[in-house]
């Protein structure tokens, strides 16, 4: 190490950094999110080449490769196949006996936004107010959250972290919750983790129910059908008014000069939605709510994804006709209707598949994100094909969110998020032995393993 060369650099470093930080800030305001994401991932491209040798590879983009290699560089897969050549300078993992799969993709959760559910100080997943389209989950993702290493050790390599409707511990009642972000579950900063800054606008569709749960008193409230409808109609009207307001703003922005309007962050955030660039992720469970949301999105001419969607089979024809996909809420749940079949949520993914409705599975959770593969496994047990079970937590969310050029399968050019397991990754006893996230070997170590090791050693 040459000190004389090092010292002048040290002196100029802070200034350079400051300049860079300023530049990044400007960039983030002006450059479209996607371009920024690419610029970011380029800037953090690892120089090194990594390779996996001799794994059984399920690419989900073609037949299983019984014994093959995967080569990664710059965060992407550069070669894959039975005969893919491994460069001499690559850091190689001998994966004989292991199985490679695309890392799993949780299509809705609150990873990074919530640490301990009951401790409000650690919860950043929801805000006060009815309409908050200007909020973006990425601005609150905590890269040092213990949930991140715990979750990726279960084979989940990327997630949609989304604002939530709140609920326990306050909040709730909001309608437009903010923008969901896509992050890799590895990185020193959110900038390194970010895959796409904004992937959907989350809308908590108004409840249309005669029974509701009141978190402030922890009791069930009842109201008449007429009352419920009145309340529902009012909320939908308010949402419609907000969209109209945003449309006027959009016209002002597009037609007027900058001096003629006062900048409004809420309305500005709606423009990508109105332009059809950003889909609405509409959280709705009951059939009449889903129908209401479809009608609304039709009128507003905006793209829609159903989120949660407990009763999506009851509106299957409508969803099919409109080609609206569903990100299915946790399938390890019970129906609110006791007349529903006992296995309703287990069969739902297979039912949607048979009906030809695009769907993905998601946790809608934080600490239970690691049950994603269990959800898929149960769907397979009740009728979904095994391949679709895997795709429901990898390719399908990527497709629904418009990220299938980057994620969801193991193919050349895609982000190298790869898991290596000792068996069927949907099985409960299967372990994730190795992980690659964004083309780099990533540790499976986490708080739980550390405590296990520490207390196993207690004399």
């Amino acid at each position, binding site marked *: 190490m040459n000190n004389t060369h090092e010292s002048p650099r040290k002196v100029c470093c802070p200034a350079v950094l400051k300049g860079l930080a300023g530049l990044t800030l400007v960039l983030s305001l002006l450059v479209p999110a996607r371009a920024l994401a690419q610029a970011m991932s380029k800037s953090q491209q690892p120089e090194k080449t990594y390779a996996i040798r001799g794994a059984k590879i399920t690419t989900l983009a073609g037949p299983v490769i019984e014994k093959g290699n995967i080569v990664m560089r710059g965060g992407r897969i550069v070669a894959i196949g039975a005969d893919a050549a491994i460069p001499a300078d690559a850091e190689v993992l001998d994966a004989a006996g292991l199985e490679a799969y695309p890392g799993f993709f949780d299509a809705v959760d609150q990873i990074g936004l919530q*640490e*301990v*559910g*009951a*401790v409000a100080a650690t919860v950043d997943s929801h805000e006060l107010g009815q309409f908050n389209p200007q909020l973006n989950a990425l601005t609150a993702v905590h890269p040092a959250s*213990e949930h991140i290493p715990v979750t990726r050790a279960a084979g989940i390599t990327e997630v949609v972290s989304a604002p*939530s*409707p709140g*609920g*326990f*511990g306050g909040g*709730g009642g909001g309608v437009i919750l903010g923008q969901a972000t896509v992050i890799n579950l590895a990185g020193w900063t959110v900038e390194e983790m970010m895959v796409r800054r904004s992937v959907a606008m989350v809308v*908590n569709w108004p*409840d249309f129910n005669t029974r*509701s*749960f009141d978190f*402030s*008193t*922890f*009791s*069930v409230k009842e109201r008449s*059908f*007429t009352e419920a409808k009145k309340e529902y109609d009012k909320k939908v009207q308010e949402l419609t008014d907000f969209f109209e307001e945003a449309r006027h703003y959009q016209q002002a922005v597009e037609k007027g000069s900058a001096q003629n309007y006062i900048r409004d962050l809420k309305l500005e955030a709606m423009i990508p939605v109105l332009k059809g660039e950003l889909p609405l992720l509409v959280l709705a*469970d009951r*059939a*009449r709510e889903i129908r209401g949301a479809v009608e609304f999105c039709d009128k507003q001419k905006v793209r829609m994804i159903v989120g949660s969607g407990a*009763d999506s089979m009851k*509106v299957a024809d409508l969803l099919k006709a409109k080609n609206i996909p569903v990100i299915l*809420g946790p399938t*390890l*749940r*019970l129906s*609110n209707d*006791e*007349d529903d*079949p*006992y*296995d309703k949520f287990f069969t739902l993914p297979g039912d949607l598949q048979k009906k030809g409705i695009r769907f993905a599975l998601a946790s*809608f*959770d934080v*600490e*239970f994100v690691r*049950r994603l593969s269990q959800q898929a*496994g*149960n769907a*397979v*047990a*009740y009728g979904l094909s095994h391949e679709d079970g895997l795709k429901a937590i990898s390719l399908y969310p990527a497709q629904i969110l418009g990220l299938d050029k980057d994620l969801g399968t193991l193919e050349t050019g895609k982000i190298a998020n790869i898991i290596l397991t000792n068996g069927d990754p*949907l*099985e*409960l*006893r*299967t372990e994730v032995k190795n992980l690659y996230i964004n083309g780099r070997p990533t540790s499976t170590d986490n*708080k*739980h393993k550390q*405590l*296990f090791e520490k*207390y*196993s050693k*207690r004399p």
Partner: protein
Amino acid sequence: MKNPSVLGTILLAGLFAGLLAPALAAQDSGVTLIENATILTVTKGTIENGSILIRNGKIAQVGKNIKAPEGATVIDAKGMYVTAGIIDCHSHIAVEGNVNEGSVAVSSMVGVGDVINPDDIDIYRDLAGGVTTANVLHGSANPIGGLNQVIKLRWGKDAEELKFEGAPPGIKFALGENPKRNNFNPPPGIPRRYPESRMGVMDVIRQAFVDAREYKKSWDEYNKRVAAGDKAAIPPRRDLKLEPLVEVLEGKRYVHSHCYRADEILQLMRLAEEFGFRIRTLQHVLEGYRVADEIAAHGAGGSTFSDWWAYKMEAYEAIPYNAAMMTRRGVIVSVNSDSAEEARHLNQEAAKTMKYGGMTEDEALRMVTINPAIQLGIDKRVGSIEPGKDADLVIYNHHPLSVYAVAQKVFIDGHIYFDREKDLAMREAQAAERKALLEKAKKAAEAEKKAGEKPGADRKPDSEKKPDGAAPPQGKDEKPKEPPKPPQQVAVAGFLD
């Protein structure tokens, strides 16, 4: 009847709730042979291509080449797996209304046995997941809670018939955040309740046992005087709160204590030792891995979650290795649900202990069968497939520790209480019946409208709503088990129960 919708919904509720069970249990002949199955006996290894003979509700014979007696119902379980019915050591199903009598810090005068609701649909749902026995516990709002009730999931039977005859009685205790009530704001006008610290929790329990000792002493003295022929002896006034605690002191009633942190677990065990009794099961016991040696030495069982964590502060250092780690140190461990949903896949939750901590298949299976049976003191009756035991069995289409295993038939006392084939077959009939009833109610409502009745004219009857509008369940199920949003019902259950 003024409002036809009321009639409609009563009809609906009545028909759907009552329909399944009698039809399912109808074909009993008393003798059944299950043959050609892979039998996971839990305690006596695995029998390939084996048979189980059931006679009068009990397992009569287990092994290979058992011939079907004359008149026996024969079930060919080729390619199937049979194991002992799942036992859930922490449940709140079948409780009418609130699971918590939270107004007082010691609620040992109440018991869930008084409020068993045999129509709770969660009984059927859990049964369909292979659960045959459940330890139905009072909630965790109080340091000393109410009495528990062990039930068998005999769907279709009445409340008394659900109760597990002869199961040792128990009581719920609770430590930490729930009895401290740190995660709740009392509704307006309701004052906070002592205790609000772990110190206070220990104080409440200790004081209760000081009182119970005094109470016991007064009865002992009275009984002594009576035995000595003293006819003037006046009995002490009965105290329904202290009576169960005296039973705890006498070792006649099990303590099932909700707990999370290692420190509180240790404190409770020491308090019990101070009064000369033992904690039967530590429930949740998420930090049990930190004091596993102490738990084993005390003799408590550990009944824990598979992989729950971080839903509240005291669960932040919970780890999925807990069950395996306690097992390795000599604790009898079960994996429980605390949730009607989780109970449906307890076999899967048990399987996770193989990944987290390296349990064997047998060890994993024990966590939801014989181990909870031991913890509940009912292991002579249930928990494994052995001659003489109750014929509580589950037939799965895959190995029960596989995520792909679906329960096909569930036996309790030798009767089939759940049959997937029949459940599937009945769905069409139910849908048709539902439709017919809705049509009928709709017509009645229209007729009523035509009659020009003013009152209630703008109040649409439920039956007029779209059939897929998911009419709310009627009457029962008041406890907020599944708040509509957020969908993470488990987290909520963890706070309440």
